[in-house]
């Protein structure tokens, strides 16, 4: 009897679990389904209030995609994002990898302290700094240029990457490098030939996250860049794809979908490591 009761509860729990999972998945993913269906609907289908909006009432169309790629700066924004992202990633790696290594190997409590200090700077938000930074950017002659964000973005990708990498480097035993140095390698050689190959997966994680942070940032790009041709996707689509009060919803939603899916896939692959960066200390 007790056994049956328990089994019944398990099945019930399974049903409740599935209900919760599916309900949340539908709520959370709905806007992306909406982007998808809007992208391929004819304009006459989109704007007829009598039609059921959840399905295609008229044949699908590629007109919105044609408009997006043919008559807007969308491709330019994709290119700008890739370009800025690549350079920001390069700057981040060059500065954060040695910094994280040095801080991990620094003896005493200072390494830890500087590490925590670097992590705390990640918490200082763009909305506190954008006003003075807009002047700094102007005095560097970078206003309204893609280079303004290329220079500024590492200020938040470096802290987070250093913090993530410190976790990776800590897991490499010091003895390994000591042994290599006994064998005649300098510390720098030991770092390049031993530490970097072992922590390649950590470095790859940093590459992905620095790149996604670049695509997701909005406030700095909005503040520093005024002309449509110099925007990234994250800003160009929501701000410049709207002409006056006219929203080209079909093309707009197609742009949203194209801009978000690749990043979402990449991010998913590396998510567990990213979360580890936030929960260091709280989870062991």
């Amino acid at each position, binding site marked *: 009897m007790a056994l049956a009761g328990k089994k019944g509860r398990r099945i019930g*729990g399974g049903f*409740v679990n599935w209900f919760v999972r599916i309900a*949340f998945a539908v709520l*959370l*993913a709905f*806007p*992306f389904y*909406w982007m998808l269906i809007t992208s391929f609907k004819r304009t006459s289908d989109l704007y007829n*209030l009598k039609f059921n*909006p*959840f399905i295609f009432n008229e044949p699908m169309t590629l007109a919105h995609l044609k408009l997006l790629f043919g008559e807007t700066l969308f491709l330019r924004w994709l290119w700008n994002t890739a370009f800025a992202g690549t350079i920001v990633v390069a700057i981040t790696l060059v*500065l*954060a990898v*040695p*910094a*994280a290594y040095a801080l991990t190997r*620094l003896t005493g409590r200072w390494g830890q302290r500087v590490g925590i200090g670097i992590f*705390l*700077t990640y*918490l*200082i*938000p*763009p909305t*506190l700094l*954008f*006003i*003075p930074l*807009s002047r*700094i950017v102007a005095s560097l002659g970078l206003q309204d240029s893609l280079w303004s964000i290329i*220079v500024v973005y590492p*200020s938040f990708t*470096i*802290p987070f990457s250093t913090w993530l990498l410190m976790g990776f480097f800590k897991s490499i035993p010091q003895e390994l490098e000591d042994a290599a140095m006994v064998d005649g390698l300098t510390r720098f050689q030991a770092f390049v030939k031993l530490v970097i190959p072992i922590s390649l997966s950590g470095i790859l994680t940093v590459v992905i996250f620095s790149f996604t942070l670049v*695509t997701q940032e909005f406030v700095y790009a909005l503040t520093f860049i005024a002309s449509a041709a110099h925007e990234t996707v*994250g*800003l160009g*689509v*929501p701000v410049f794809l709207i002409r006056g009060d006219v*929203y080209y*919803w079909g093309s*707009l*939603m197609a*742009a*949203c979908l194209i*801009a*978000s*899916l690749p*990043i*979402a*896939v990449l*991010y998913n692959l590396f*998510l567990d490591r990213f*979360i*580890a960066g936030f*929960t*260091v*200390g*709280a*989870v*062991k």
Partner: protein
Amino acid sequence: MFLPAVLYVLALVGVPLILAFLYSVGDVKVGSVGYHFVGLANFRSVLESPTFRVALRNSFIFTISSQILVLVGATILALSLKKAFPGRWLLRFLILLPWVAPVSIGSIGWKWILDSLYSVINWVLIRLHLANEFSPPMWLGDPKLAMLSIILVQTWHMLPFATVIILAGWTALPKDIPEAAEVDGAGFFRRLFQIEIPMMLPIINVAVLFGIIFTFTDMTVVYILTRGGPYDTTQVLPTQAFQTGVLGSDLAEGAAISMFLVPILIVVAWLMLRSAHRAEVT
């Protein structure tokens, strides 16, 4: 070897941070030269502005209500995802979309869903006879509904992040104590509220603290959905600072508004350090 990184960050975070403070007690405008110390004059004029008071209040409402919703939703969702099940990767992908897609782009998706004329929500409400066909709800045009909309969209954006953090904590939790409690006859809710959730508190803390920072200091959702409107009723501190300091070219007053973010940041940073320190000691 960490000096270049530290210098880079100091130059682009430390220096503007000090400048922001100096601007807030000075008389800087776009194009102006020279600098005069004006004490707390900017803060006084900011505090006297009714728009600012609305923004300050909205910032707290926006942050607190969205974070409560996130916390409750994320705990329930994480609970349902704890055990392995078929199709987990697909469900995880769908659930994570709001966090991993650029938030500016997710928000524009919502702008279309909440459109004044073609809102799909209204279409459903009208079919269910919950809304009037001739005066449907103006999700972004009515002050109360606009506030509700930005809170819900921010919740939508932050929920996956809190869920994965809580889930990571749950997976790392030692299994023996809840199991022992089950053997001793403790039911599901008793185990949940008296054993598992208390054991999870440090990790829930992390999720909440990051959630507060990312919500209190961000302006993307509000800027895209309402730009602070209608009539400044959904203005929050960051959008107000942007409006004043960047669009309105009053750097000093904009910086003063931003400075109101600092106390919250300090409290949250202090709480984080304390919980990190505690984890280190134990």
